[in-house]
């Protein structure tokens, strides 16, 4: 108050509905794109959405598509959080697979689900489901809003939880009556501090010194990197460490792209379907440094076969629970990968183990990643080679799940770090196509390729409507082998050759299908048409669907037979 009793000029108290509070808070958190689907329990949010033109809303055709699109958005625009709207009941439940996919690969996504009014919760009312309970095991955290004044701080906290530490999806269940209730807008200005969610620790300097000494003494060192390196944008730091001490670098499926294949120190993917020479290097290593990875069963194959000669196993990860979960390290550092690698590199002395690097080069020659092409049929790798030759080390490649995923990963060949995105943890078929929409919207200036099989593509093909409606310029490659290829390969090799429910005897005409949705579509089964078709697709402004009828017998190699160890890999022959 001033002396004459007038109220001093301060920011006017803004009264608004809970829905407006939510949308305003999302803008404060940097949200510019929401993937969503309206319904009875979130109509108030949609009522006010047009008042916020800063937010672009993408109306998907199925909520699973929204969750995957937000995932692709967040994976490809690192540091940002993907955002999803869905209504209560079936709308929210349709998100579950997408949330699990984001959880499996530590992707920050915030899903805001409409819920029945607070007074109706627990009465089995129309389109009511227990969203908190249904999503609990596939989210990092979740909130059920019960008071209108909690909306703003909860959204702030949810985004903090989603993006901090090891990122992950967060659900906010938002009852309908709170969306309409009127309150003051107060956005907390201070950084979120939670006693139950401590910040990421600094790497322990003593342990980093220990690791630097182990690297100094190492005769056969190997680095394996996972998605943690990409999440923390530590590609340069990884390269710096590898080059300083001349340590070969391999990667997990989700670590693909973190270290350039064309670097002389590059190994390849490790594990179940990894390169033979990577598996040999890991099995012969005396010091193995694992950075930002979970070391799951697709990496280790049979657990006792993983890195049997290692004298010092080093594990750097941001999540303490990953340390010792599957493989027990001798030295562990809980820290952000970028920070830990930068500090570690400063402690490491330059060195070069000539004999070891020569040995690795020899293994590379003995076990190259290759395929056989002698039956006149189009090989999937030929399609991918043509695609990658048009990527210029810059395109973002989103792969689905199955044979197409492994082929696309093994042929990813950039000369500098790049983004290769796929559902590696949850292994969710149908991921790539909707995810690629989010990737393109987050990266309008980059070419985006979506690689899928004929099985996975149809799982979320309804999003063709979304893609055409919004002119989202993704180039889609369907590697069509008339089957669920990886299932078929496993049945042939590991289940006595009994092909059961793996052959897709009716495949849609993908050209007609794409055209029905208003999308440019092309098809070929001829090697010489692949390049020109890709050129035509790239020249076309807007989404293009390309169907490639590939050799239906093409398999993934190398592969470690189920139940076998790392060195039992079988190669293409």
């Amino acid at each position, binding site marked *: 108050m001033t002396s004459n009793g007038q109220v001093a000029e301060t920011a006017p108290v803004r009264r608004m509905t809970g829905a407006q509070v939510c949308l305003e808070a999302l803008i404060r958190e940097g949200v510019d794109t929401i993937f969503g689907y309206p319904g009875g329990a979130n109509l108030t949010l949609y009522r006010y959405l047009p008042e916020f033109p800063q937010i672009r809303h993408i109306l998907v055709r199925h909520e699973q598509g929204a969750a995957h699109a937000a995932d692709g958005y967040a994976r490809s625009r690192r540091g940002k959080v993907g955002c999803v709207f869905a209504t209560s009941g079936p709308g929210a439940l349709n998100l579950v697979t997408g949330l699990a996919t984001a959880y499996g690969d530590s992707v920050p996504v915030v899903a805001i689900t409409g819920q029945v009014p607070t007074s109706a919760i627990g009465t089995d009312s129309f389109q009511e489901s227990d969203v908190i309970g249904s999503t609990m*095991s596939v989210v*990092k955290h979740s909130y*059920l809003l019960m008071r209108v004044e909690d909306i703003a701080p909860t959204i702030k906290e949810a985004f903090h939880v989603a993006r901090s530490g090891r990122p992950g999806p967060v659900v906010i269940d938002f009852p309908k009556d709170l969306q309409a209730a009127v309150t003051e807008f107060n956005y907390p200005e201070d950084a979120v501090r*939670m006693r*139950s969610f401590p910040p990421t620790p600094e790497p322990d300097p003593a342990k980093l010194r220990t690791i630097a000494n182990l690297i100094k003494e190492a005769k056969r060192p190997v680095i394996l990197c996972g998605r943690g390196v990409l999440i923390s944008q530590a590609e340069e730091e990884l390269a710096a460490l590898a080059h300083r001490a001349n340590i070969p670098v391999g990667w997990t499926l989700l670590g693909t792209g973190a270290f350039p294949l064309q670097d002389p120190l590059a190994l390849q993917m490790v594990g179940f379907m990894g390169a033979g020479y990577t598996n040999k290097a890991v099995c012969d290593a005396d010091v193995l440094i694992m950075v930002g990875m979970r070391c799951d069963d697709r990496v280790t194959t049979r657990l006792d076969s993983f890195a049997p000669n290692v004298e010092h196993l080093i594990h750097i990860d941001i999540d303490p629970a990953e340390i*010792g979960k599957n493989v027990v390290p001798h030295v562990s550092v809980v820290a952000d990968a970028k920070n830990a690698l930068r500090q570690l590199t400063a402690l490491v002395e330059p060195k070069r183990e000539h004999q070891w690097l020569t040995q690795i080069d020899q293994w590379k020659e003995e076990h190259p990643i290759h395929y056989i092409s002698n039956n006149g049929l189009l090989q999937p790798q030929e399609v991918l080679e043509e695609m990658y030759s048009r990527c210029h080390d810059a395109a973002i490649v989103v792969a689905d799940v199955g044979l197409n995923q492994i082929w696309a990963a093994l042929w990813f060949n950039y000369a500098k770090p790049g983004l290769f995105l796929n559902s590696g943890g949850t292994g969710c078929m149908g991921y790539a196509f909707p995810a690629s929409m989010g990737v393109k919207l987050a990266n309008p200036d980059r070419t985006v390729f979506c690689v899928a099989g004929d099985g996975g593509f149809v799982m979320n093909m309804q999003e063709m409507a979304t893609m055409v409606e919004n002119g989202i310029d993704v180039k889609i490659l369907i590697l069509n082998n008339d089957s669920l290829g990886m299932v078929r390969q496993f049945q042939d090799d590991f289940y006595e050759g009994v092909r059961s429910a793996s052959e897709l005897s009716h495949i849609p005409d993908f050209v007609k299908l794409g055209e029905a949705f208003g999308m440019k579509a092309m098809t070929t089964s001829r090697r010489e048409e692949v390049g020109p078709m890709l050129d035509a697709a790239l020249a076309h402004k807007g989404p293009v669907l390309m169907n490639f009828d590939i050799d239906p017998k093409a398999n993934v190699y190398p592969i470690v037979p189920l139940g076998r160890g790392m060195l039992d890999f079988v190669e293409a022959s």
Partner: protein
Amino acid sequence: MSQTRLLSVLVENKPGVLMRVASMIRRRGFNIDSLAVGPTEDETVSRMTISVHVGRQQAEQATKQLAKIVDVIAIDDITGLRSVAHELLLMRVHTSPGRRTEIIDTVEIFRGRIVDVGASSLIVEISGSTEKIENFVELMRPYGIMEMARSGAVALVRGDQARIRIVDYEVGEEAVAGGSRRAPVAAGPAADLTGDI
């Protein structure tokens, strides 16, 4: 080799926390022997005392996975520490004519109480270690245990200091210090001045 670990867990006193903890334990394949939850000296914090049956390598995993739950403030594996771990037993035991006195004598030896008397039964209340409770249950079996309820253990570590100090980021200087930034810190071995009394 599997074993029982006794975990003392401080959690936010919010709806759904029990479900988050129980769900994680089930999902990771650990088995709960008992779980007791109740308020603490701080009304925003609840303490869960969880007796969990795990394989040897799982013990650390169970602790780490619990610590990861966002609503878990601090977790302390107090297995093998000098602690007081007590549970409460309520038992309705059948009293046939002439045997009531024997039962009452046994209850007194166990420093229990008779809390309800019926024509042919008693309700007995006993508190103490799980071992003591189990011994008492065995002694009562011949008389006819009609029904019983056990609380599961609640526990505190002996000594003069609180084991877990909760640093509040809004006021604590750890909020800005670069050094030890883990919010919940176990105070380490406390000066052990007390014994079983």
